[in-house]
């Protein structure tokens, strides 16, 4: 009997829930307060956007919405290391990363408001980004295809793609890891382990001790970080992105957080969530600890907080206004993007739809 392979999974956290650094030797960003303040503001933007979305949904102005409350450090953290020409392949709870990579708040609302224009990102930075893929885990494979194109063209770009811990049970996720491994693709796989897949707790999802170790099945690098610690997320993502862009291949980063909200506006987590979990969770959430850290370093104050909130809420409100004021697409929009050129038979149906629309 011989040992032919050995593996270990590392867990990284720099900033604890009290906003204290756990090491004397933190990554550079820990001292880059301008950057941290920006990231703090970006996380707050996502938090406030979610709040606004809930308000819109509750007043019948938006469809089902999936908030990222409690998971802001993940998306903001990793997407903040992305270059303009890197590509994001998000999942439905990926609005933090999407907005960070140039998608507008209005587009986020449009998507959940039942309007395809929410997938037609106007910002140059997001032009090549994928829209949300609703069928879980399919996005992981699309990300590998994007990375394969970059590799064939010899480009120094990389791809980030995110998935929930529940989504890792899908075969597509594994197939993506495997092909990324054997083809040495520049993809960074982010697992948002918020510990719930709708009502199914992580403990019913897999017998794995960590989600990071799923990458061992593909022979690719992996690690676990505290997903409530934006410094840890940022640092891990930064290294992985550089590696990916320089032909070093894929990385899986499991970010442990907690879903501090219902699954979506259509869900009622009180049906299945154990008592006390939320209370405990709120103590560890990512904004609070970063604010504490900034405050402890005299970088933040109530005044700055209020200024910042005013700014992000104005931004959100103006996006919400645009969203609400945007007229629905005409009926023919159902047809106009189906193919480059619409076949004869469907053209006739397009006319029927227009005629019906005109009658209303």
């Amino acid at each position: 009997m011989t040992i032919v392979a050995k593996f270990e999974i590392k867990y990284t956290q720099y900033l604890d829930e009290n906003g204290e650094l756990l090491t004397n030797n933190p990554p550079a960003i820990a001292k880059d307060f301008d950057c941290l303040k920006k990231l703090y503001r970006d996380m707050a933007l996502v938090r406030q956007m979610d709040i606004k979305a809930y308000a819109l949904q509750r007043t019948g102005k938006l469809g089902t919405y999936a908030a990222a409350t409690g998971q802001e450090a993940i998306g903001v953290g990793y997407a903040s290391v992305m270059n303009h020409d890197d590509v994001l392949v998000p999942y439905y709870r990926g609005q933090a990363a999407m907005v960070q990579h140039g998608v507008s708040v209005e587009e986020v609302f449009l998507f959940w408001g039942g309007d395809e224009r929410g997938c037609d990102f106007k910002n140059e930075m997001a032009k090549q980004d994928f829209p949300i893929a609703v069928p879980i885990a399919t996005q992981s494979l699309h990300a590998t295809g994007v990375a394969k194109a970059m590799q064939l063209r010899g480009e120094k770009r990389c791809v980030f793609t995110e998935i929930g811990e529940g989504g890792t049970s899908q075969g597509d996720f594994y197939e993506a890891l495997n092909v990324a491994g054997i083809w040495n693709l520049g993809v960074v796989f982010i697992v948002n382990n918020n510990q719930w897949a709708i009502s199914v707790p992580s403990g019913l999802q897999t017998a794995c001790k960590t989600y990071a170790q799923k990458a061992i099945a593909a022979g690719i690098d992996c690690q676990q970080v505290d997903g409530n610690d934006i410094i840890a997320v940022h640092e891990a993502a930064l290294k992985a992105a550089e590696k990916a862009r320089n032909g070093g291949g894929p990385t899986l980063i499991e970010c442990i957080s907690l879903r501090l909200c219902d699954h979506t506006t259509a869900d009622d987590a009180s049906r299945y969530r154990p008592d006390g979990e939320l209370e405990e969770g709120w103590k560890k959430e990512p904004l609070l600890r970063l604010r504490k850290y900034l405050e402890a370093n005299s970088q933040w104050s109530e005044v700055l907080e209020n200024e910042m909130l005013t700014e992000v809420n104005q931004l959100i409100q103006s996006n919400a206004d645009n969203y609400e004021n945007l007229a629905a697409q005409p009926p023919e929009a159902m047809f106009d993007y189906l193919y480059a050129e619409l076949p004869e038979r469907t053209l006739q149906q397009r006319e029927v739809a227009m005629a019906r629309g005109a009658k209303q």
Partner: protein
Amino acid sequence: MKAITLIEAVNMAMAYEMTQDKEVVVFGEDVGANGGVFRATDGLQEKFGEARVIDTPLAEAMIAGVAIGMAAQGMKPVAEIQFMGFIFPAADHIISHCARLRNRTRGRLTLPLVIRAPYGGGIHAPENHSESTEAIFAHIPGLKVVIPSNPSRAYGLMLAAIRDPDPVIFLEPKRVYRIEKHEIEDDGEDYPLGVCFVDREGTDITLISWGAMMHETRQAAEKLAALGVSAEVIDVATINPLDIATILDSVAKTGRVCIVQEAPKAGALGSEIAAEIAEKGIMNLLAPIGRVSGFDTVMPYYRLEKQFMPKVEHIVEEARRIVEYK
């Protein structure tokens, strides 16, 4: 006896059969503590325990594959696919195995399983939550595909589906999950699979539909009656295998047909019904066969979904055109 909705009827049927038959187990994503995202399995885990009402990991191929393995051992799995838009990862198991294991083994291994999935549009859901792709499974020999259109049929057909010795894909028209209530005796009486229901007798035209569109179709029949047109209404209910005999009988009587479906038009179930009539009942036809359907395009995001779906007025209009055809 209280009046219940279609989804409550699905729930009641599963509970009834789980009580009767220890081999019946229910599983899927969120069917346990949560009782299903639409509450189809509400209360079942409390009643029957975690061993028989099982929250699965998030993987549809796995759900179908596990159902096959269990059923081959003689159990009676009732598996939920959360939305029909997510059935495609399971397509290989459904098409390549569910439909074939009995045939492949010359009857040695059989699959008394049910795969349930809510389908269809109209509830303002996100993309991939609103499609009507039943035609795909209606084309696969070896499957049974059943779609109830009201609470009573949901109860009776679900019982029949669970009891059936062969795999049944049970598609639930979620738009009408809660739209009407029926008083249903919880007596375990099933309805037959493989037969169409004649919902309303008529002499001038045969309206044929299934699932949620039955709702519009029945209303259209009312309106047509008010206009002096006597419409016979058929609820296909089992779309595979198709009970074409009942349809041909009706066409022999009325000579005119309008098929109503939510799915895109090309290559859908309505095409098969029309083709059968064009082959076997054409001599009785007094007019072209009409199909009122969704468009041959992708189901739009919800803000435009109403523009996609056939409405009562479209059925009435098409039916009148057909009735007036000379």
